[in-house]
């Protein structure tokens, strides 16, 4: 199975900079953007280059948020009422290995126009270091013309690619939600009241509705202020380059999540199904699960295994939130965090925006916070000027992508890569020729996964309308995600991903639970069909 490592190795060998990729990758984060049409850029950039630079525009919004909650919780987890420390999603700075591979389609951010990024790149001619980033940046700065004549062709392809990327996000989000819903419906532990997080100290067991509302608002204020403080803390840490601190933090958090939370989860599942399990076996299972998870997430591993782990830890995190957030507080927090996301990303002085800008100035990938990344095929094409064919190293996500050759979209002045070149090592994969439209990955911050799953999980846990409400929230969230990506394509600037989905989700939750449910129940009672 091709590992990401190979991609990195291949990258090192690909000295030439195929223009192909530039366009490809360049357009990846903005696949909808016709502006991006760099189909005819003559000098190429190495794919990873682009990917990395694109990586700069990675989902910033999710980074700090997840980091905040992470940091806050890890600092305070000992004081939790129930020993389960709320391990928030943790940000992990993957190496350039990771970032080189897939361009982040940040559902949050896509920096404004490729032109702005280009300028940054051209200006920032960093000396070559061992950092692939810098090397890339140098190559990157070489050329940057966009040929707008290719826009039209791009448009249709962009739509297809756009669609593919949307689906690449739909699938993991759906999987995460399914895991959460399945757990909520079967394991009763996560719907029992078991105390509250330290961030939501006010109880909701009050006598009056007004008091309850007030308590939930106060809880929300506390939670959001913790998040804001942590975001600012993160930005400060990042500004002063305290990378080791951040790394350590992340590793600690993922340790807790992978070992402790999954142990709890497994325990509850066994209790639910009355499975007898001895401690040695359990220890072995948990140890293997956790160790492989740590390796996959923080180091190298097969892509799909890594994706699976990320989905699992997002689901675990979401389950913890669902259990420990009181009902009304959860809804208000969801709403507030969407507003916060909106503000933090769109306001000029927002912490997230500052983080992005700092990272761009330094030409580094912003913490690939625990970011879910999908497909990673990238191809090395040939440059205009060099007749050398570089071997391409692919990691195919599916054969389908490999097989896609849009011959009708070929560039005239572009040389196609011939597949079947093998790269050093056994793990090469051949790819079919072609172009540009290859699989580029998409990155989505885990914070998104978590909050979407919290919404759907809460809907399935607390709604009396049961499955209808869950279904409605699920569809609403997916449509919100789709719309967010569409808006991203239209406005071509950084947009937060949470607000639209969460708004739709909340609207549909409350309306389905209160309006649709009685209607459908009545219809079902009489067996009327609409």
């Amino acid at each position, binding site marked *: 199975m091709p590992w990401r490592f190979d991609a990195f190795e291949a990258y090192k060998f690909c000295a030439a900079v195929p223009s192909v990729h530039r366009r490809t990758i360049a357009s990846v984060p903005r696949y909808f953007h*016709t502006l991006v049409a760099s189909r005819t850029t003559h000098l190429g950039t190495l794919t990873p280059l682009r990917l990395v630079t694109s990586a700069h525009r990675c989902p910033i919004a999710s980074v700090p948020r997840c980091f905040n909650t992470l940091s806050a919780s890890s600092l305070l987890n000992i004081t939790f009422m129930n020993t389960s420390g709320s391990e928030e999603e943790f940000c992990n700075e993957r190496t350039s290995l990771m970032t080189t591979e897939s361009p982040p389609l940040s559902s949050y951010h896509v920096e404004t126009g490729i032109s702005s990024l280009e300028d940054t790149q051209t200006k920032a001619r960093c000396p070559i270091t061992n950092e692939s980033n810098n090397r890339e940046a140098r190559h990157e700065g070489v050329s940057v013309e966009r040929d707008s004549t290719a826009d*039209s*062709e791009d*448009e*249709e392809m962009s*739509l*297809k690619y756009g*669609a*593919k990327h*949307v*689906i690449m996000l*739909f699938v993991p989000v759906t999987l995460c939600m399914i895991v959460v819903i399945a757990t909520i419906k079967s394991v009763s532990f996560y719907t029992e009241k078991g105390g509250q997080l330290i961030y939501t100290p006010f109880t909701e067991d009050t006598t009056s509705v007004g008091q309850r509302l007030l308590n939930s608002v106060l809880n929300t204020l506390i939670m959001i202020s913790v998040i804001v403080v942590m975001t600012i803390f993160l930005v400060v840490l990042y500004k002063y380059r305290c990378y080791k601190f951040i790394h350590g933090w992340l590793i600690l958090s993922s340790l807790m999540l992978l070992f402790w939370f999954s142990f709890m989860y497994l325990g509850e599942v066994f209790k639910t199904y009355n499975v007898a399990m001895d401690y040695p076996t359990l220890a072995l299972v948990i140890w293997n699960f956790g160790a492989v998870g740590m390796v996959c997430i923080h180091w190298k591993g097969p892509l799909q295994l890594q994706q699976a782990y990320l989905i699992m830890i997002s689901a675990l995190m979401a389950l913890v939130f669902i259990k420990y957030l009181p009902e009304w507080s959860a809804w208000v927090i969801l709403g507030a965090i969407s507003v916060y996301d909106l503000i933090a990303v769109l306001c000029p002085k927002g912490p997230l925006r500052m983080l992005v800008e700092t990272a761009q100035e330094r030409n580094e990938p912003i913490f690939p916070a625990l970011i879910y990344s999908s497909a990673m095929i990238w191809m090395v094409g040939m440059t205009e000027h060099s007749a050398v064919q570089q071997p391409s190293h692919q990691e195919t996500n599916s054969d*389908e992508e490999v097989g896609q050759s849009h011959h009708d979209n070929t560039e005239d002045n572009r040389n196609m890569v011939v597949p079947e070149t093998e790269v050093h090592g056994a793990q090469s994969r051949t790819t079919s020729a072609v172009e540009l439209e290859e699989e580029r990955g998409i990155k989505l911050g885990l914070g998104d996964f978590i909050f979407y799953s919290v919404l759907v999980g809460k809907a399935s846990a607390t709604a009396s*309308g*049961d*499955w*209808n409400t869950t*279904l*409605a929230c699920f*569809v*609403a969230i*997916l*449509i919100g995600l*789709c719309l967010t990506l569409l808006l991203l394509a239209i406005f071509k600037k950084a947009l937060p991903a949470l607000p639209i989905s969460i708004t739709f989700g909340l609207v*549909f939750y409350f*309306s*389905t639970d*209160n*309006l*649709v449910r*009685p*209607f*459908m*129940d*009545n*219809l*079902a009672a*009489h*067996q*009327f*069909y*609409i």
Partner: protein
Amino acid sequence: MTASVFFGCTFIAFGPAISLFLFTIARDPLRVIFLIAGAFFWLVSLLLSSLVWFIAVQISNKENASVQKGLLIFGVVLSVLLQETFRFGYYKLLKRANEGLMALSQEDAMPISIRQLAYVSGLGFGFMSGAFSVVNILADSLGPGTVGIHGDSQHYFVSSAFMTMAIILLHMFWGVVFFDACEKKRWWAVVIVVLSHLLVSCLSFLNPQYEGSLIPAYVVMCVMGMWAFSSAGGSLRNLKLCLTCRDKDFLLANHRPR
């Protein structure tokens, strides 16, 4: 009320729809997106009709059972009309989006044809409609209970499943016919689609006399199916060629040897 009832009813209700999805839609991301968007539109139409019904119920006399039943019938009719309105709205939206894209891309070929959109959106409507009708019932069928203990019909689950299957397929056929009629500006066809939807829904008022509701619903489904098939370009000749695997165009397009 066991797993067998659950699985049986699930597969009856969703079998055709899921296989349609898996074989024709799952591979193409654009179609999946439009399917989910279609489901969303249906959901919004249901929301609006529930809102109106809810308000009507709140201001009415809650004790009176016949008034409530009348309001429910009104709700059903309103819901059907709203669904068809939203189908039309979805059609308009897709047309506009397609036109916009075509204008931008200056290409002749659209990434997805209006016929595919009709099929996909119809199926989206069907999925959501079927899911909302039957999922709660299926969930209940897993648990313990006795069907019809108070004298209601024993065939509640099975009949619900069959009705749901009919509705899902009907939505798909309605989608195809509707979009085709809108494309060709044949408004009488649109009216017939709306009327047939109303017919099927109103037939369900006859439940639990399933002979009165299920059989005509299936008849309507077959008729609509044939109409949809012919409006999508099918004909007896095509069908024969396809079934005997001699359809060159299809085989060529799918790179399959004869």
